[in-house]
């Protein structure tokens, strides 16, 4: 089995690609490669160009924000099966957070810049990618809101 074939079969089974026709998944698989990251390695850094997104096959990744006096503050951890990164899809295509592998991590890395260019022509592909990415953004936003309101610390007034 070639890498593209094995990546394609993983993508087909992944919830992010549910409802997407196999021919479109095949197109996406052509923009994908396998990557691995050592424990502690930065996957991307805030301010860098966001030209990829990742599907974590195995491992754990911390999304962090760097604060000058406090260092890296982990906001969320992602693990097997999670999709990492959506800044590649929205202007200005810059990462807003740091992503660091907490353990040895393997990903399927998708070439976001290439997919973006393809979506400009192939609107069906663009629609599906946008729809599924927005679903993830909404889920993460809900989670972030719960974190911000500090539910466990709340006292009734």
């Amino acid at each position, binding site marked *: 089995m070639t890498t593209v074939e094995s990546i394609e079969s993983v993508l087909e089974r992944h919830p992010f690609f549910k409802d997407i026709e196999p021919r479109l998944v095949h197109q996406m698989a052509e923009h994908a490669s396998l990557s691995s990251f050592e424990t502690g390695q930065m996957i991307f850094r805030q301010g860098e160009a966001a030209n990829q997104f990742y599907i974590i096959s195995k491992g754990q990744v911390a999304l962090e924000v760097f604060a000058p006096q406090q260092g890296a503050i982990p906001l969320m*951890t992602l*693990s097997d099966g999670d999709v990492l990164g959506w800044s590649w899809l929205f202007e200005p295509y810059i990462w807003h957070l740091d992503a660091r592998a907490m353990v040895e991590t393997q990903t399927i890395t998708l070439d976001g810049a290439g997919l973006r260019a393809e979506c400009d022509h192939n609107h069906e592909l663009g629609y599906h990618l946008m729809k599924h990415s927005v679903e993830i953004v909404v889920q993460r936003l809900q*989670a972030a809101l719960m*974190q911000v*309101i500090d539910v466990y610390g709340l006292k009734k007034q």
Partner: protein
Amino acid sequence: MTATVAHSPTRNLPNPMLPNPYRVQRVRKETQDTFTLELEPANGQSDFHFAAGQFNMLYIFGVGEVPISISGDPGKPRKLVHTTRAVGVVTSAMQQLKRDDMVGVRGPFGNDWPVVEAQGKDVVIVAGGLGLAPVRPALYHVLNHREKYDNVVLLYGTRTPNDILYRREVEKWRARLDVDVHVTVDRAIHPWRGNVGVVTRLIPKSPFDHLNAVAMICGPEVMIRFTVLELERRGVLPDNIFISMERNMKCATGFCGHCQWGPNFVCKDGPVFRYSEIKPFFGQRGL
């Protein structure tokens, strides 16, 4: 409208309004503002039995009375265990109690977690913050009768790693091969290397069969709301989701109406509710 009330011991109480004297046997600090009291009957005799999910009214002499869930093992009812967070007048006074101090106990009141209904199924317990205390008896019950259940999953979220309740016990459960325990914190503090994020994010990847699972949720109402959403998104039916509710209480016996919630009195119809039965008014303001 009740969950699966296996029995209602309240009806058998001699006088449910009369506190029985109990002695503090042990006080354990759990986190900065949370502590556990182990109580024994002052006269040394006890036929106290409770079901997982029930609560007692604890009376601090000269201060007042508050409802607190029983958080011990229903298989060892002689040891009456309560874990409390100091938030106000009564619970702060309770925090000052020492060994051999006296407490008045009325109870047990309320219904129980559906540990019988869950037999033969996957059990998914989702707890947030102090919510692990009221649901711990259900986990004890399930682990005491492990062969009667399929997969057992505990998903636990707290504010920071320092707020993890029963830390040693959680670590022991995590080391077992027959329970899946996942802990997450909203804010990591060094040297935490575990999950960061809200507890609901643990649900999509948890090892349970959504068609054959019973979920029990305990924690702040906002957390319950989002947990229910995520369980439903995963395909768990509202009939198989149970939540524990808190409302201010006075009599705890269904007479005064203090704890009314929609058409229910939390003290006697709850505190455990089947989600499908309270769905129409759950999360509504003013209730």
